[in-house]
């Protein structure tokens, strides 16, 4: 198996057995992974809500750029790619056609 490298054209989905959900007890979004709990910050949650196995990374960036029009698109693209790559390296995200 090779490392999955996230690019503009990647289409991502949550890996099987990864659960991204809202926790009522803690009133926050969480990622449940094997023997691991991740607490994504607000910005990461907004990105992850757009990960659906259909929307490409560039479309996710477009959608965020439209919402936060003060931030330059390049900067958003860099943040989004870095965050998604980190979660791909942790085995939480995979290519949608993998």
């Amino acid at each position: 198996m090779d490392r999955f490298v996230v690019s503009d054209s990647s289409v991502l989905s949550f890996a099987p057995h990864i659960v991204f959900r809202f926790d009522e007890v803690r009133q926050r979004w969480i990622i449940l992974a094997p023997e691991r709990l991740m607490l994504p910050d607000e910005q990461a949650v907004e990105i992850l809500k757009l990960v659906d196995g259909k929307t490409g990374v560039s479309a996710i960036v477009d959608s965020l750029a439209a919402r936060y029009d003060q931030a330059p698109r390049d900067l958003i693209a860099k943040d989004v790619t870095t965050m998604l790559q980190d979660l791909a390296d942790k085995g939480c995200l995979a290519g949608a056609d993998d």
Partner: protein
Amino acid sequence: MPTIDPPLALLAELTHRCPLACPYCSNPLNLERAAGELSDQDWRRVLAEAAALGVLQVHFSGGEPMARRDLLALIGAANGLGLYSNLITSGTLGGAREIDAFAAAGLKHVQLSFQDFTAENGDRIAGLAGGHDRKQRFAEAVRAAGLPLTLNMVVHRQNLDGVPDMIEMALELGARRIEIAHVQYYAWALRNRAALLPTRRQLDQATEAVEAARARLKGVLTIDYVVPDYHGVRPKSCMSGWGRQFINVMPSGTAVPCHAAETLPGIAFPSVRNSSLSDIWHRSDAFNRFRGTDWMAEPCRSCERREIDWGGCRCQAFLLAGDAGRTDPVCTLSPDHGVVEAALQEAEGAPPAFVYRRFSAAR
């Protein structure tokens, strides 16, 4: 009193029965027999209470949890409650049929132990002929069922040199993660410490091998590895602090903040047989005893790491310094640190024979 956060995880130790006899087993020396185990109904109630309390993950463990016939039903119950379930197994009881059923019932992950990368040494350490081959077939069944697999390798002086080969084995078996866990010296492991504690030279080589593999395998294989506390400078943050994230229910129903805590004298640990998990977590004397930092004495009390290490391990303080309220002796700031240095000195000598973990050797 600061507010008490809900626990993240429930360690469900379903049984102490196990086909393996590993001399470093973390189960207590006084093993629970089958007749003393909680019933299926008790466990269903505990799972429901855990979910209501805010527990997110349940780890089905033991002993060998597959020795329980109701494991499939409990996995289904956990899944129905929204609990993320993990099976911690030796992979020596059952195979594809069981794993497929567990996956269908909603199991999310399997942590499978190996005792070494060769059948010969693995079976010798586990005290079970043919075990290693069964584990390999079990790993294949886990992957065939589409479940993520973590290999758990407990390492010590009699297998530590094989770390690079263990990592290769994890890749060959399709694991996404390997946990290389140094033996922790409680219960059976403490009894066998002189046979298990690695030399400094062995440890440095293994640590170097792990660091090289981590860089090479980024995004392919996650390697969880922590330098053992005896060889460290500051203690481990045991269970991430007493009563902060974990609640462990033993086969008998006794609830403890960590699997070794029952050995601590003078603490009446509550039982799920007659208390709710919520009462145990929030109100029991046992879970409040070493919670937070108020209980600490010096050098912990004024230490800048007091909310990082949480004083280290209470059980180790008791076992090595005779008082659970003292600083963990593995800390170089502890006045009791000499006992750890003496054990490390002993490790440079020839190892004695194992005392295997069996009911017949239990006390």
